[in-house]
């Protein structure tokens, strides 16, 4: 069901803030001006988005039910979900904020509040704020993972999104998945952005020769901007582990890393040499790493984080530092705003908000809408994006620490494609995707929103039980290492046809217990037939003969086409031994 704007406004809707402070106003109607309410302050407005994942059109995207982390990190922003999250930030259940910021009752609230995000709606809001504040007081920043991972993003080589960024007037960005377009295409798009006045910055990417010797920076490490009479230094960190998390071949000859030492040098340089009034780190490091980084590198005033998709509705001051960390969610759901009163090298006041991009309430900018429509209709014609494949009986989602209905469905589809002979299907633990509500039609566009990558092939290999466990332990350490400097992973790999128990605080490389494959205990010496995709491509000589590599989206489209409806399991295949782990019904049970 899609509500029109009028339907939406006519619904009696309460904002969380209202209910928390004044239950009598519970019957108040949410209006655009409620949504836009903001305490303006100072001379600088930073507007920021991150992890759009090329969702130019409104869609559904639920925050995860679980964000399981090692115990030393529990309770930090970015580790709290569901009802606990609503309590932590005093947001009333059932409100627009609750819908955008938590998983609680997602399918039910989705029917009430409608779709989220949409680039033309972001543009409208950006223009609105600029018209109120004045262009000279506003800086528009993007944290990366912006150009690709939907059909319209990936199959235009990022051009659709870059054109939208140009139109909207972005000033500075950093990157991650952008690099999976390959160096040549990325550099071309960056040039296009630069021609429109948007800079791509990264202090943590350097050229490296075939012997491993490092050379020059690939991009400018920082940008200096005069905003509202203040001088701001913005340092960039692109995703530090790009050549590890994604195939290396895309960035051959470039070396990444966190590079906290040079970061400190650039902070000092901006303050001492360039006399900036404030230092901002625009980062795709991930929230927990940025919080840890703030304790190691001194002098950063603001970190605008990205990568981990966290919704942090209150600015977080890192204990023991003077650094404030903010992050604006993902998938086009939020526009972040931070107003600063900056003078003589000091931030005297700040005001912060994540605007939920409620597409039924925030108008679309006509020019941006035209641009998005034109790219959409062209690709729809070519790829049949709006074609309905089948109905889903449960909510399809991907984001969770261990398990998702989407990934289980992918496992079934891939196993079906290879004749039902597979023992294991491993899906990557990306944080991105979309949501298909229970009872909704699954379209070709949905499939691409989960799988449109530049290295989509599924490979079939034979691996011993021992080899499999080694890889899974390795991934688990990338996700659950207690030190964020050593957390490379996204969420845990999704293991179809596998059940296991995990002690997330267990000994490194020995966290998994009682692994079964197809219901039988994993045997270290037995060889298993395994399908993998979404990681670095395996060496050709390790592939099992007779199993042709095929793009995962092709397998899925053909599989779903054959079905009238799908109903993948909702019960997790993982038991967490030493941390709470909530099932599907905790958030997604109602509303079908």
């Amino acid at each position: 069901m899609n509500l029109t704007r009028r339907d939406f406004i006519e619904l009696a809707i309460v904002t969380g803030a209202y209910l928390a402070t004044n239950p009598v106003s519970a019957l108040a109607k949410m209006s655009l001006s409620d949504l836009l309410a903001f305490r303006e302050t100072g001379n600088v407005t930073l507007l920021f988005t991150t992890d759009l994942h090329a969702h130019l059109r409104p869609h559904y995207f639920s925050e995860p039910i679980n964000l399981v982390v090692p115990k030393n990190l529990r309770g930090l922003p970015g580790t709290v979900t569901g009802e606990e999250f609503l309590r932590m930030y005093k947001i009333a259940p059932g409100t627009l904020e609750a819908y955008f910021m938590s998983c609680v009752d997602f399918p039910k609230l989705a029917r009430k509040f409608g779709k989220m995000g949409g680039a033309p709606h972001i543009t409208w809001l950006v223009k609105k704020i600029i018209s109120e504040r004045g262009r000279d007081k506003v800086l528009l920043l993007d944290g990366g993972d912006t150009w690709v991972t939907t059909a319209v993003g990936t199959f235009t080589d990022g051009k659709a999104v870059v054109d939208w960024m140009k139109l909207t007037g972005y000033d500075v960005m950093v990157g991650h998945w952008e690099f999976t377009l390959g160096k040549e295409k990325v550099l071309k798009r960056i040039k296009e952005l630069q021609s429109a006045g948007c800079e791509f910055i990264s202090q943590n990417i350097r050229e490296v020769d075939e012997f491993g010797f490092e050379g020059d920076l690939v991009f400018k490490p920082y940008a200096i901007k005069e905003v509202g009479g203040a001088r701001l230094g913005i340092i960039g960190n692109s995703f530090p582990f790009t050549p590890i998390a994604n195939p290396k071949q895309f960035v051959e000859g470039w070396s990444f890393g966190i590079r906290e030492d040079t970061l400190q040098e650039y902070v000092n340089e901006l303050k001492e040499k360039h006399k900036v009034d404030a230092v901002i780190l625009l980062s795709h490091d991930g929230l927990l790493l940025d919080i840890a980084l703030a304790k190691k590198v001194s002098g950063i005033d603001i970190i605008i984080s990205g990568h981990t998709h966290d919704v942090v509705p209150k600015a977080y001051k890192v204990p023991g530092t003077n650094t404030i960390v903010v992050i604006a969610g993902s998938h086009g759901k939020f526009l972040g705003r931070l107003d600063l009163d900056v003078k003589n090298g000091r931030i005297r006041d700040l005001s912060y908000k994540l605007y939920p991009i409620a597409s039924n309430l925030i108008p679309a900018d006509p020019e941006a809408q035209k641009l998005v429509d034109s790219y959409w209709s062209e690709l729809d014609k070519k790829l049949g994006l709006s074609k309905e494949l089948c109905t889903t009986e449960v909510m399809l989602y991907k984001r969770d620490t261990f398990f998702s209905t989407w990934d289980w469905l992918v496992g079934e589809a891939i196993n079906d494609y290879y004749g039902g002979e597979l023992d294991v299907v491993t899906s990557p633990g990306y944080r991105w995707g979309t949501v298909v509500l229970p009872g909704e039609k699954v379209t070709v566009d949905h499939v691409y929103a989960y799988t449109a990558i530049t290295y989509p092939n599924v490979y079939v290999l034979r691996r011993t039980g021992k080899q499999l466990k080694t890889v899974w332990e390795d991934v688990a350490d990338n996700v659950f290492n207690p030190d964020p400097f050593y957390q490379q992973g996204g969420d845990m790999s999704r293991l179809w046809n596998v059940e296991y128990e995990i002690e997330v605080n267990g000994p490194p490389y020995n966290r998994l217990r009682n692994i079964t494959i197809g219901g039988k205990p994993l045997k270290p010496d037995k060889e298993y037939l395994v399908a993998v995709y979404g990681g670095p491509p395996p060496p050709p000589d390790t592939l099992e003969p007779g199993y042709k590599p095929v793009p995962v989206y092709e397998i899925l489209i053909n599989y779903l086409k054959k079905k009238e409806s799908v109903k993948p399991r909702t019960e997790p295949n993982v038991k967490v031994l030493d941390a709470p782990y909530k099932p599907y019904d905790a958030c997604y049970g109602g509303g079908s």
Partner: protein
Amino acid sequence: MKRREFIKLTALTALGVFLGSGALRSASAKITLEEALKKHLGVGLSQIKESDKVKIKAPSIAESGANVPIQVSADVPVEQVESLHIFVDKNPNPFIASVDFSPMNGEVFFATRIKMGATSPVRAILKLKDGTYLMASKEVKVTVGGCG
């Protein structure tokens, strides 16, 4: 640092460099860290003091285990230093390199690329002329990666 500067510095810094299998040849028989320390330094780990005067710079997660950049420096006058020794605990042969220093070097600085078979601490051990040892270590993760 530019490549040229790096080569200059290395050439200036290291008077004599001896490289172990982690830096050059393929591994021979597997030995433990303790055995390697005894063989190359004549002392065990318990006789070596950890010190924040020694600094070791390395990535927390290696982009490739075959080629991990490390850089060692120390806030110790070079006149007091005899040599620097680098070890990787979990390598089949933990010994990586030994570097002799002389006052001509000006300061304690050494940078190289090392090979690592698995996630492990990387240790930089300074032997001082008074016969004592100072050590810094940093854990470097070697991972198959995947997942964005």
